[in-house]
C-alpha cells in the first residue's frame, strides 16, 4: 500500500514536470509576442516594450524563462502581465465565484442521474428506458451555448426574472428574501447547464452498471429464494453497482478549476473560465500557464484519489 502510494506520487510528479514543459513550449513557441498585443497604443513606445521585456524576463532564452516562471509560481510570486497583480490572488478570487456553480452543478448531476439510470435499468427496453436513452443523447448532443439561450428565453418570458450575471445590477436595498431568491435564480441556470452533460453521461453509466449487476448469479439466487423485487433491486443489485461510482468522486476534482468558458461568458459570470478566456485574449501568459498547471495538478490528484478509493472500497484489488 505505502509503496503503491509512493510510486504513484513519484510518477505523477514526473508527469507534472513534463506537462509544465509542454504547456510552456506550446505557449511560447506559438507565433506572435505578448509585447505586440496592442501595437496601436501610443503609450507602447519601443523603450516601454524593452522595459516590459526586461521586467518579465522575456529577453532571456527559453529555458531560463521556464525556470524563472516556475520558480515564481511555486513561491507564489507570479504576477499578471496585464495589471501586475498576484496571479494566485486573482485565481482565488475567481475560484470563489466558480465554486457555487461547481457545487450546485455536481449536486444536480449526482442526485438526478442515479434515479434516472436505476429506473431505466429496471424497466429495460420499456417506454421509460427508451425515452430516457433518447433524452440523454439529446442532452449530450445539444451545444451548450444554444441550450443556454433556450433556457434564458424560457425563464425570462415565463418567470420574468433576470438571470445574467452574478446578481441583478443595483438590487442593493431589497429585502433579504428577495436578495436570496435573486442569487438563486442567477445561480440556477448556469449550474443546470453545467450539469446537463454530466447527467446524460452519468445516468447512462449507472444504467449499464446496474444492468451488468442484474445479470449476475447472486441476483438470480436472490430472486429464486423469493426475496421481494424491491429488495433485489435496491439491496442486492444497487449496492454492488455503486462500487465504481465511489471512485468517480476523485474524477470530478478537475471540474473545480475547469469552469466552462462558454457558459461563463454567456452569463457574464466572473469565474475561472471567463478569466482564462480574457487572459487568452490579452496574451497574459502567466495566468494561462497557471490555470493550465493547476488543472493538471487537479487531474493528477483526482486520478490518485480515485485509485486510493478503489483500493479502500474493493477488497478484490490487491497490490
Amino acid at each position, binding site marked *: 500500500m505505502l509503496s503503491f502510494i509512493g510510486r504513484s506520487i513519484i510518477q505523477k510528479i*514526473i*508527469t*507534472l514536470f*513534463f*506537462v509544465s514543459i*509542454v*504547456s510552456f513550449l*506550446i*505557449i511560447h513557441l*506559438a*507565433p*506572435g509576442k505578448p509585447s505586440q498585443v496592442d501595437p496601436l497604443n501610443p503609450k507602447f513606445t519601443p523603450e516601454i516594450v524593452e522595459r516590459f521585456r526586461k521586467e518579465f524576463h522575456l529577453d532571456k532564452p527559453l529555458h531560463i524563462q521556464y525556470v524563472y516562471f516556475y520558480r515564481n509560481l511555486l513561491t507564489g510570486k507570479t504576477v499578471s502581465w496585464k495589471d501586475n497583480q498576484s496571479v494566485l490572488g486573482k485565481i482565488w478570487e475567481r475560484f470563489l465565484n466558480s465554486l457555487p456553480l461547481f457545487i450546485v452543478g455536481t449536486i444536480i448531476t449526482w442526485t438526478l442521474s442515479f434515479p434516472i439510470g436505476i429506473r431505466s435499468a429496471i424497466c429495460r427496453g420499456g417506454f421509460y428506458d427508451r425515452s430516457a*436513452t*433518447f433524452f440523454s*443523447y*439529446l442532452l*449530450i*448532443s*445539444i*451545444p*451548450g*451555448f*444554444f441550450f443556454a*439561450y*433556450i433556457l*434564458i*428565453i424560457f425563464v425570462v418570458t415565463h418567470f420574468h426574472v433576470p438571470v445574467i450575471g452574478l446578481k441583478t445590477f443595483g438590487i442593493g436595498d431589497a429585502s433579504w428574501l428577495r436578495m436570496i431568491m435573486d442569487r438563486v435564480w442567477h445561480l440556477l441556470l448556469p449550474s443546470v447547464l453545467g450539469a446537463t452533460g454530466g447527467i446524460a453521461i452519468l445516468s447512462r453509466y449507472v444504467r449499464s452498471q446496474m444492468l451488468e449487476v442484474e445479470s449476475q448469479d447472486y441476483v438470480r439466487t436472490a430472486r429464486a429464494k423469493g426475496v421481494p423485487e424491491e429488495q433485489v433491486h435496491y439491496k442486492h443489485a444497487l449496492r454492488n453497482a455503486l462500487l465504481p461510482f465511489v471512485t468517480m468522486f476523485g474524477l470530478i476534482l*478537475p471540474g473545480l478549476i*475547469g469552469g466552462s*468558458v*462558454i457558459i461563463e*461568458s454567456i452569463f457574464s459570470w466572473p469565474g475561472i*473560465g471567463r478569466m*482564462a*478566456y480574457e487572459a*487568452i*485574449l490579452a*496574451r497574459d501568459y502567466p495566468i*494561462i500557464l497557471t*490555470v*493550465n498547471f493547476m*488543472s*493538471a495538478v487537479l*487531474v*493528477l490528484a483526482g486520478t490518485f484519489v480515485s485509485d486510493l478509493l478503489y483500493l479502500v472500497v474493493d477488497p478484490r484489488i490487491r497490490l
Partner: protein
Amino acid sequence: MNAIAKDLDKNALDAPRRSGLHEFWQLLKQDRLAIIGLAIFVLFFCIALLGLVLTTGTDPTLKPAMIRLQEKLRQPLSRPNLETLRPEEVPRLGVYLLGTDDLGRDVFARMLQGAWVSLTVGFVAVGISVLIGILMGGIAGYFGQNHVRVDHILFLIVLHSGVVLLLLWVRPLWAALLGGVVWGFIFSLCWKKVWKRWQLSGWLNILRKDTISIDTLIMRFVDIMLCFPSFFLILTVVALLPASMYNIMIVIGLTSWMGTTRFVRAEFLSLREQDFVTAARALGVNQWRIIFRHMIPNAMAPVLVSATIGIATAILTEAGLSFLGFGVPPPHATWGSILSDGKRFIFDAPWLTFTPGFAILIVVLCFNLFGEGLRDILNPKLRQRY
C-alpha cells in the same frame, strides 16, 4: 426433426452465405435510432456537398456574403422586396427560406456554406486523431515490449540536429526536406549494415543499454496529454495561431487522439496473443503484413465507434470555437458564428439563433446515435442471434 437435420447438414457443408457487410446491415436494421442517425448523416452529407457547390466560385448561385442592408432581419419564407433591390442583389431562389440576418444576408445560403465547414472539420479532425491514435497505439501494443536503447537516443539526436542544421542553413524548405530525407536514408543504412553487426567491447557496451520500454514511453505521453483541459488547450492554441479552418482541424485532431491510442493498444495487446497471429507468424508472414492485414482489421471496431462519436465532439468543439469568435475568419459563415451573430437579436429574430442551433443539435445527435448503434452491432457480446 427431419427439417432440422437437413438444415444442420446444409450448414455443415456450406460456408456461411452471409457476407460481413450483409450481417452488419441485418443488425443495423433492427436498431431504429441508429438507422435514423445514418439517414440523417447521409442527408447532411448531401446538403453539405450541395452547399459547397452552390456557394463557392466567382459567381455562386446563392450568395452567402451578399449584404442587403434594406432587407435586414426579414422573417423566414418572406419574399424579397424587389423595388428596393438592384438586379444583382435579388436572391436566386426568389424567397428567403430561412430569413435574413442583421446585415440582410440570406441565412439559408449561409447555413449551406456552414454545413461544409462542420462536415470537413469533423471528418478531417477525426481522421488526424484516428491516424495518430492507430499509429501510436499500434506501436505501443505490438512493439511495446522492446526497449529504447541509449544508442537509439543518440541516433535520433544526431538525425534531428542534422535536420535542424539543414533547416537553418538552407532557406528553401523543400531543399531542407530533401536533405533531411537523404540524411535519414544514409543514417539508417549505416545503422542496419554497420552498427548492428559491430562487436562492442568494454565500456562502449553502455550504448546498447536498455533505458525505457516503448510502451511506457507512449503511454506516459498519453497521460501527459490527458492532463490538459482539452477545450481550454484548443482555445489557447487556436487563439494564438492565425485564424483559419485548417488550423482548427489540425488542433482538434492533435488534441484528441489519446482515446484511440488506448483502445488500439489494448486491442493489439490481446490480439498478438491470439492463435491466428501465432499461426501467421509460424507461417513466416512478414510482421508488417501481420499488423496491417491481420491485426488492424480486427482492432477497428472500437476505433470506428470512437471515431463516429469523435466527429460529433469535433463538430461541437468547432461550433463552440466559432461561437467565441475563434472560428473560420468572418466573411465565411459557420453555424457557430451565425448563432453568435444572431444572439443579439434573440427576441426580435429568433430564427437567427434557432436555425443554426437546431442544425448543430440534429447533426451531432445523428452522429452520436449512429455511433452508439455501431457499438452495439460491433460488440459480439451484445449481439443477439436473429
